[in-house]
């Protein structure tokens, strides 16, 4: 596979950017998954596509809008009616789905080089994300594993809750550096660490 180059490289400054009292409210990471795949089912084929996701990725997506699962190496969630994002730290997921998803079922789009995955974790993660997106990030409204699609000005974002205070944000690669810089500025208030 062609090497994936991080669009964040010129602005990524690993280390602690803490408050004066040394506290850190969030940690920011580029998770660099090997595979990011978008799957879309034709109308009425949603069940068959969810079955294919279970077969190929081993993820049992729950029913319902935005339902998803997040594990250490793999994650998947619905972000629109009949559409799913499946992510794997390993490469080759798109090829596996291309074999398993019949043309009558739906479509497979390899976005591994098209999206940048940013993880924001820590006690202030909800607070920092709420500065960007006009959505409810509280646990009851945004359960563990579930995902949403939303937008920060013109930067379209898909967000999955991967932990109680941990979120994975997928943004277009070409907007990722700008978004990362904004995210760092927004995190200055609570102190942040780049891993």
């Amino acid at each position: 596979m062609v090497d994936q180059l991080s669009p964040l490289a010129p602005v990524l400054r690993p280390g602690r950017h803490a408050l004066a009292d040394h506290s850190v409210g969030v940690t920011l990471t580029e998770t660099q998954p090997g595979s990011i795949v978008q799957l879309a089912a034709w109308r009425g084929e949603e069940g068959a596509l969810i079955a294919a996701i279970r077969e190929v990725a081993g993820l049992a997506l729950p029913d319902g809008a935005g339902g998803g699962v997040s594990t250490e190496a793999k994650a998947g969630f619905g972000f629109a009616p009949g559409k799913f994002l499946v992510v794997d730290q390993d490469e080759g997921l798109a090829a596996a789905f291309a074999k398993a998803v019949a043309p009558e079922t739906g479509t497979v789009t390899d976005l591994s080089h098209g999206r940048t995955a940013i993880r924001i974790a820590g006690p202030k993660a909800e607070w920092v994300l709420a500065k960007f997106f006009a959505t409810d990030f509280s646990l009851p409204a945004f359960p563990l594993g579930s995902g949403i699609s939303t937008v920060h000005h013109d930067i379209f974002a898909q967000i999955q809750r991967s932990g109680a205070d941990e979120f994975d944000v997928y943004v277009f690669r070409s907007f990722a550096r700008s978004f990362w810089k904004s995210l760092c500025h927004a995190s200055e208030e609570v102190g942040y660490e780049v891993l």
Partner: protein
Amino acid sequence: MIITCPYCGPRDSSEFVYREEGGRIRPDQASTDQAAWNAYVYDRVNTAGEHDEIWQHSGGCRAHLRIVRNTVTHRIVSVAFARDHGRPHERRKAETPA
């Protein structure tokens, strides 16, 4: 203004774009009826009250929505997927009284 998307839940109206007035019937492509085309392109109901509209959740799930909005109070009366009624034009044809 908050619009409750049937997929995404309650979202700020800035995530949505207004597409068109609902209930418009496109004349047959082969039609040469000038009056019918003029009416399709220019005539609008322009309701003061509950108004049938097509919106898109462009900053979210990108689904097209059929929204009934009160143009006087801005109250959103109902939100549904446009696709639940088939393609918008076909749906509106079926719902328009003959």
